[in-house]
């Protein structure tokens, strides 16, 4: 089932044991530990479980050379992922471009800015990373059916990776999702169930279904493994910067998992000896004003995150009850980062700014990230002396509605020279 990733099956650097270095699962709230299993919450306090690795063992085998000899995908970091064997479900997620964004930086009055362009993944969002890990683990556990609750990007990724792996799939989405995201999920042939409600309603149904059917719900019962896939965004960033870390990262926040795991990824690189110095990466979060429960808590200096009813064009970030919000809030506070909550108009302008200055077309979540970067730069929270990485997690073709009517032909004319010159002054054309 694994695709033939160049250099993977043949390289002598492939892990000899093909065993994961995950020792146990640990509750992030109370610290209780559990055996490796398809479970996701602590039975005691309902806190989320996280993979606990044997970092000493990883440190003994991992090296920059071993990673460089791996495949051009997330699986080059397999030692730091919770999967027991070579990638079972692999469409080539990861190892996406890190693009120097000097023109964007100049517009925002910043110095060194980079865009981690995750729009180039197999289904055009970072969700391919987490899904590849989740479904690989699901096969290990013996699941025959994959499922998820999704705001769209995860739906695409789960449907595609399930098709590739020969798994049945059930994908649950809010019925008001962008038409493009429904089509780009349904085309893979699995079950797509549109729910009359918002994402939090969908998620609630899925939490109940996950207790009833022996399915691998990638963001529910295999979420503990799924979430680890996001660390690869930090691993790649450091590797692509020549094994250095940025000073500041700006990350979109929906559930809060991505931001939390990017920070964990940088820390792990130091833990296993791949970085020379302990990373001190400031982490900032991006939310849409119409769904900003974590940004509101940060702004208000609160320790409680109050759920909201989402109302924003950034549907991929429209999670009103963010499960990892507390951890994202902690990460931002501990690293002296910031948050911004941006309007729908600012999101559209963010999409256009990135496209206009750097040639990268982002979906609405990317618009949120760029608009947040602009706000934080204006407030002096992101500084010109910092090396900044902004994470662009999904492709603009997924959310064409957001820019439809805002951009279009510069001129619509007859097919004559006269018409062209009526529209454009020849003196401006040389």
């Amino acid at each position, binding site marked *: 089932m694994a695709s033939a990733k160049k250099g993977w099956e043949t390289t002598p650097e492939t892990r000899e044991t093909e065993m994961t270095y995950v020792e146990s699962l640990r509750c992030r709230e109370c610290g209780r530990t559990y055996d490796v299993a398809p479970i996701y*919450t602590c039975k005691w306090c*309902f806190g989320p479980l996280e993979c606990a690795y044997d970092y000493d063992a990883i440190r003994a085998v991992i090296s920059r050379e071993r990673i460089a000899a791996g495949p051009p995908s997330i699986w080059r970091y397999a030692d730091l992922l919770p999967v027991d064997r070579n990638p079972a479900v692999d469409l080539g997620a990861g190892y996406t471009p890190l693009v120097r964004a000097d023109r964007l930086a100049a517009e925002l009055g910043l110095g060194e800015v980079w865009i981690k362009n995750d729009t180039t993944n197999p289904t055009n969002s970072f969700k391919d990373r987490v899904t590849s890990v989740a479904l690989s683990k699901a096969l290990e556990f013996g699941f025959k059916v994959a499922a*998820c609750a999704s705001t769209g990007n995860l739906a695409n990724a789960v449907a595609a990776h399930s098709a590739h792996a020969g798994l049945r799939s059930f994908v649950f989405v809010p019925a008001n999702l962008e038409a493009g995201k429904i089509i780009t999920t349904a085309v893979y042939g699995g079950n797509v169930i549109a729910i009359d409600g918002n994402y939090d309603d969908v998620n609630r149904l899925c939490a*109940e279904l996950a*207790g009833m059917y022996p399915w691998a719900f990638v963001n529910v019962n295999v979420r503990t493994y799924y979430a680890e896939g996001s660390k690869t965004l930090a691993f790649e960033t450091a590797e692509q910067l020549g094994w250095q870390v940025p000073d500041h990262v700006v990350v979109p926040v*929906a559930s809060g998992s991505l931001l939390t795991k990017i920070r964990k990824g940088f820390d792990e690189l130091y833990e296993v000896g791949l970085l020379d110095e302990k990373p001190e990466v400031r982490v900032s979060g991006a939310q849409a004003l119409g769904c900003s429960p974590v940004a509101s808590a940060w702004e208000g200096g609160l320790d409680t995150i109050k759920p909201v009813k989402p109302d924003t064009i950034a549907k991929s970030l429209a*999670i009103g009850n963010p499960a990892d919000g507390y951890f994202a809030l902690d990460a931002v506070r501990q690293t002296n980062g910031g948050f911004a909550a941006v309007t729908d108009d600012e999101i559209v302008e963010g999409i256009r700014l990135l496209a206009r200055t750097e040639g990268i077309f982002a979906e609405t979540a990317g618009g949120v990230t760029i608009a947040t970067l602009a706000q934080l730069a204006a407030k002096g929270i992101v500084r010109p002396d910092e090396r900044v990485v902004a994470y662009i997690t999904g492709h603009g073709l997924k959310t064409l509605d957001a820019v439809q009517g805002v951009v279009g032909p510069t001129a619509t004319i007859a097919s004559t020279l006269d018409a062209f010159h009526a529209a454009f002054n020849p003196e401006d054309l040389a």
Partner: protein
Amino acid sequence: MAVTIRIPTQLRELAGGAGEVALEGGTIAELLTALDAANPGFAERLYGEDGELRRFVNVFLDDEDIRFLDGTATAVSDGQVVSIIPAVAGG
């Protein structure tokens, strides 16, 4: 008639394996107290040391998160369904 409380998988061992129980109570807090009285152990799992619901415990009255209502003081009527659901990450 009573109120139905739906128990998540993680806590069913406390209720003898039952996925649902029927109890009497006028508010969410009263129902959860009744739940603990009938099946000792629920309270310490649902409430933190501060006496508030743990932050990864979500409680719904029919289709609404009680944090959008009056929290544990939310009034409950016969025939309604209370669901206890762990917080779930997004996608």
